[in-house]
């Protein structure tokens, strides 16, 4: 599928007319929050949760420990816009202009070829959702979260915003107030999905905010792989993405969450992703961050069950004007837990990539094992990389390994590849793709090819 996918140009420069924006407005107040909730026909508890989140949002200060967010004008963001009246189950029922956007992104084709199910969100609401019949029969639920909240309240309510409470930080609170759309994925006990599920999030209009909420419950012994892709066209006006992801991985279950985020370079991507991992369960995060002016994203695994494990694999590409402030957070809260963090960053043309990590070993979590490896590749002298790893170790039996490297493309490596007949930029792209191979090899082939291609596009004109 990836060979048919857009280049960056079409992904970022093409956008549809957005007449539906006439009915939406900028800025946020209680009235808008009540409007969102009533539009969705939400139960009272869901509205209460939104209002509580809004109060916390108003009380909380902007985070000051990370990149400077002073240019983000929260008053100018459109917090809710509905581009389509309903969510469709076949692509034929999706409005033509929206469908053509997703066709350019290769989504319907990928669904036919490699995916177990697909969801697609456009602005604030999900416009398409489908799951293959054989998985429906097994009791798998893959649904728009707005709908799931009404259809399966007994499954949603006990988990929703529990792992990511609104008082976590200002943007978690904002998310809790205005969240809309997103995915609900439920894998029943023992069910193992062989094909990945995918959701694609697209912001189309100028100055949008997107606040999808993804809630995933993997019951005991179950297995699944979920992939998210994201993009938005570029307007030169700031937009905001503050998504929320909550994942519950029960005893002996295995789950992989992959995402390739390529928001336009005028998007603030302030995202929260958290997983709780129970006994002998395994959680994997695989992430690629390419777009956005400022990204703040630190997927978190909380290992609460004995023998729980987590792998965090991440790649960030910081090009001109971009700050990729990404990393990982792992809390070891049970015995014999282990985690591995591998983060790679590439900085170019003055871009800044920073690894910010926290590993905490609780006092009772004996025999924990932690391995952290951060590698930064700088493509020129103007670009910046840094690592800020924090370790809080409260149990002396923990085994900790930490390694960080930073460097440039080796001139001898370039000469070697060029001497074989490759142009300088081809050779550099090969070296960079080799550098990120530990991450791309974990993705399904179509996505790893796509990620390599995104790197090649970002690499254009970087040398010689």
């Amino acid at each position, binding site marked *: 599928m990836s060979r048919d996918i857009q280049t960056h140009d079409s992904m970022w420069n093409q956008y549809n007319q957005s007449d539906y924006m006439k009915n939406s407005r900028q800025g946020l107040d209680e009235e808008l929050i009540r409007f969102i909730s009533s539009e969705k026909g939400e139960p009272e508890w869901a509205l209460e949760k939104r209002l509580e989140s809004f109060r916390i949002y108003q009380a909380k200060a902007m985070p000051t420990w990370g990149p400077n967010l002073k240019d983000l004008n929260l008053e100018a963001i459109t917090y809710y816009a509905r581009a389509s009246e309903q969510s469709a189950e076949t692509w034929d029922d999706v409005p033509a202009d929206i469908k053509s956007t997703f066709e350019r992104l290769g989504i319907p084709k990928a669904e036919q070829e490699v995916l177990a199910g697909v969801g697609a969100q456009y602005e604030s609401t999900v416009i398409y959702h489908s799951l293959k019949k054989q998985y429906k029969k097994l009791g798998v639920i893959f649904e728009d979260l707005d709908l799931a909240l009404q259809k399966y309240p007994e499954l949603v309510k006990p988990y929703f915003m529990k792992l990511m409470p609104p008082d976590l930080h200002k943007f978690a609170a904002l998310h809790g107030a205005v969240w809309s759309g997103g995915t609900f994925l439920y894998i029943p006990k023992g069910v193992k999905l062989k094909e990945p599920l995918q959701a694609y999030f697209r912001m189309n209009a100028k100055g949008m905010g997107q606040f999808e909420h993804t809630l995933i419950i993997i019951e005991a012994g179950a297995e699944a792989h979920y992939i998210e892709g994201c993009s938005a066209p570029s307007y030169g006006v700031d937009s905001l993405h503050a998504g929320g992801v909550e994942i519950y991985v029960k005893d002996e279950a295995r789950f992989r969450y992959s995402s390739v985020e390529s928001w336009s370079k005028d998007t603030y991507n302030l995202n929260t992703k958290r997983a709780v991992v129970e006994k002998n369960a395994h959680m994997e995060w695989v992430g690629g961050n390419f777009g956005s002016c400022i990204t703040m994203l630190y997927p978190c695994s909380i290992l609460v069950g004995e023998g729980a494990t987590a792998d965090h694999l991440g790649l960030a590409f910081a090009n001109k004007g971009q700050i990729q402030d990404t990393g990982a957070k792992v809390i070891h809260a049970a015995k014999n837990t282990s985690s591995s963090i591998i983060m790679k960053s590439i900085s170019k043309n003055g871009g800044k990539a920073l690894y910010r990590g926290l590993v905490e070993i609780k006092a009772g979590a004996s025999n924990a094992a932690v391995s952290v490896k951060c590698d930064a590749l700088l493509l020129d002298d103007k670009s910046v990389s840094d690592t800020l790893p924090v370790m809080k170790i409260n149990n002396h039996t923990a085994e900790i390994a930490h390694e960080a490297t930073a460097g440039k493309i080796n001139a001898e490596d370039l000469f070697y590849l*060029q*001497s074989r*007949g*490759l*142009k300088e930029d*081809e050779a550099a792209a090969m070296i960079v793709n080799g550098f990120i191979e*530990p991450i791309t090899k974990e993705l399904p082939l179509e996505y790893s090819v796509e990620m390599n291609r995104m790197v090649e596009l970002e690499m254009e004109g970087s040398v010689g």
Partner: protein
Amino acid sequence: MKILEVKNLKVKAGEKLILNDISFDINRGESVVIMGPNGSGKSTLANVLMGHPSYQVISGEIIFKNKNIINLKPEERAALGIFLAFQEPREITGLELFPFLFDVTKSLARNRGQKPESVFAFKVRLDDELEKLNISEDWSDRQVNQDFSGGEKKKSELLQLALNNPDFAIFDEIDSGLDVDALADAGEAIQRFKKQNKTILAVTHYQRVLKYIEPDSVIVMAKGKIVSQGGAELAAQLERDGFSLYNEL
């Protein structure tokens, strides 16, 4: 017919003059060996012929197939038919050999104005060359020279020599790091190359590889200069007497 003419070549690395007025010719189909003590400029010459960006050519010419290539990039020289087998081939982490080798043949075909080979035709040719070099088939799943032994790295270079089909090969100490068996495999690969009327310039310290190269002439370098030239017998004399004579120059 001359394939390579080096005329009055002067090269600097930083402020230091490291090749001083080098001139020699090679005819098509000939094999020439360059010998000399460490630091004499042999490897520098090999790298300069390939277009290494760290060296500045301050004067002189390198004429390859009647064309001055001084201002050509390494990939342009490769397209013209020059190949450098590195003394220490680079390890490129994460880059798998098969897609790398195939991309290289595609690039070379494009730049040489030839029809690109299909991946199937390439695979047949690759398997054939792997077998000739006594390399196992799963080799091409490995990453480029990553964790290769010294001998494996040299075989990897000779594999690429065969696949890339240059007219002129520069061997920079192709025999170093080879055990007896690997030396025989490497030597046979060199012989196969020679039989196609190809041209060789080999930098070496040792006599043992010369029986495969069968040089038509020998150049001796010391301190960035050519200090002696002669026939194959000069190599034997050097191995017997060493380079002490030239060290005093």
